């Protein structure tokens, strides 16, 4: 019987066969009984009876199951409450009933996922805002220095950071740039921790960038996963002596444009990244960067040098160095920054950024020139193709 029940067409054919069989059988019987005429009542009664039987079969086997499905589909489409339907048949209508049940089960899961994603996106927005609030909006004056700094995250929450801090006596300006392993929320959390610890160390009056990083590292390392670390390089500008120092924490090179020779020195920052070992005091050291009027310093994260173009070529340290050599003579940090980022944007084209990128340009303008600092954080511009970056515009 399953052979008949699993298809409306088969059921219809079966009924038709039954009907024809009943008519033929009836005719044969009448012929055998030599009945030449059948009364109208008998004929009508038989006919109506047959029709009623067919109607009842159609009603319970087709109409009722179909209406049950249609009602729940209407509820779904009009936003009303719907529920699972127990299939009454195993034919096409039964199949549509199963289909409805499966679809609505998936829809419920999708709806939950969408709500969950909205909630997470909202929390990510909050985390991103917290991170942007941590990054400097304005910086203390550093007489003699002209500074521009910009950062752009690859995700809602990034792992790159920079900051400018002044010592309590106002004579030292600390400038750092850092990059946490990976990006996203874990990197963002470590970035915020490090920035907070550095602020605390500077406010304690620690005299050198090395001391600041030793203290920061000692506080940070026991508090983060051993797999996470932050590369960092910190500059210290002594306003009274107009001298620049640096301490490396396993970060990228420090590029120094020498205006007299019109060449670029690429200094390995050295040291060891923060978070790798609890005591880095024997591995990091503060060193001087001799500076003359017109010299410039560029700090950057590897999102720049490791950015690729459509051909898979990396921008690289050589191109960055060449770009600084070309534009380092320009009188302001902003002009150097804009030209270098134009070079960068031209190279990478529309290749989508996969890592955070940060760059700081510092121009030594001299003691009497006054200091101004321009900062910009690319807020919520993740997933913007490189060609649309406003870095150079």
């Amino acid at each position, binding site marked *: 019987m399953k052979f008949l029940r699993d298809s409306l067409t088969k059921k219809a054919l079966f009924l038709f066969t039954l009907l024809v069989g009943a008519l033929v059988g009836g005719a044969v019987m009448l012929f055998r009984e030599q009945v030449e005429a059948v009364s109208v009542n008998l004929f009508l009664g038989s006919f109506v009876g047959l029709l009623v039987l067919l109607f009842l079969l159609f009603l319970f086997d087709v109409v009722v199951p179909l209406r049950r499905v249609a009602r729940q589909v209407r509820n779904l489409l009009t936003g009303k409450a719907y529920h699972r339907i127990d299939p009454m048949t195993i034919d096409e209508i039964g199949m549509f009933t199963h289909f409805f049940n499966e679809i609505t089960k998936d829809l419920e899961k999708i709806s939950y996922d969408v709500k969950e994603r909205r909630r997470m996106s909202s929390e990510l927005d909050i985390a991103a805002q917290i991170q942007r609030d941590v990054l400097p909006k304005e910086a203390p004056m550093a007489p003699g220095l002209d500074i521009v700094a910009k950062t752009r995250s690859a995700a809602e929450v990034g792992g790159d950071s920079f900051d400018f801090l002044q010592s309590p006596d106002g004579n030292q300006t600390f400038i750092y740039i850092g990059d946490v392993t990976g990006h996203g929320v874990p990197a963002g959390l470590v970035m915020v921790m490090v920035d907070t610890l550095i602020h605390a160390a500077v406010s304690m009056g620690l005299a050198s960038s090395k001391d600041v990083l030793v203290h920061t590292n000692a506080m940070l390392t026991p508090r983060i*996963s051993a797999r996470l670390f932050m590369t960092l390089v910190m500059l210290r500008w002594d306003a009274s002596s107009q001298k620049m120092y640096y301490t490396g924490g396993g970060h990228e090179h420090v590029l120094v444009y020498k205006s007299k020779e019109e060449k670029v020195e690429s200094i390995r920052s050295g040291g060891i990244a923060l978070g790798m070992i609890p005591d880095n005091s024997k591995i990091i050291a503060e060193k001087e960067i001799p500076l003359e009027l017109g010299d410039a310093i560029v700090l950057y994260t590897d999102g720049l040098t490791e950015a690729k173009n459509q051909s898979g070529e990396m921008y690289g340290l050589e191109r960055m160095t060449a770009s600084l050599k070309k534009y380092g003579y320009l009188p302001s940090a902003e002009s150097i920054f804009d030209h270098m980022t134009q070079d960068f944007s031209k190279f990478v084209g529309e290749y989508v950024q996969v890592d955070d990128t940060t760059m700081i340009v510092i121009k030594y303008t001299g003691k009497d020139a006054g200091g101004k600092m321009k900062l910009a954080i690319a807020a919520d511009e993740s997933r913007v193709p490189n060609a649309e970056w406003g870095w150079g515009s």
Partner: protein
Amino acid sequence: MSTIANITVEPAPDNPSVQIIHLSGEVDESNLPDFEQAVKPLVLDPSRKVLLFDFDGLKFISSKVIGQFAYLYTTLAHSQRQLVLARMDENIKDIFALVGLDQIIPTYPDVNTALQSFNQTPAAA
């Protein structure tokens, strides 16, 4: 598409407490779990006093994998065990040097020279 790395482990010829892990190909976030799975039993086994990574054939590692080596160094050092690296090509050596890991993890030009070093106690972190 997942990056491919080849990871094979064998004890040192004359000292089973030294495990040589041959690593080749590329290791990044996509196959880092495979790398962790291969290394985890060695890290958990206190009888493996030295883990010696042979990087011959390794072309690339990502920064997250660098973090994994920092973790391995710290974890082994806590139980007086050693992490040693050998046969790194210039690119890999540069990556380790940039973040400063070469300052704490001994590196050697070849496996034999590395094998001779494991009798020293690890530098305190």
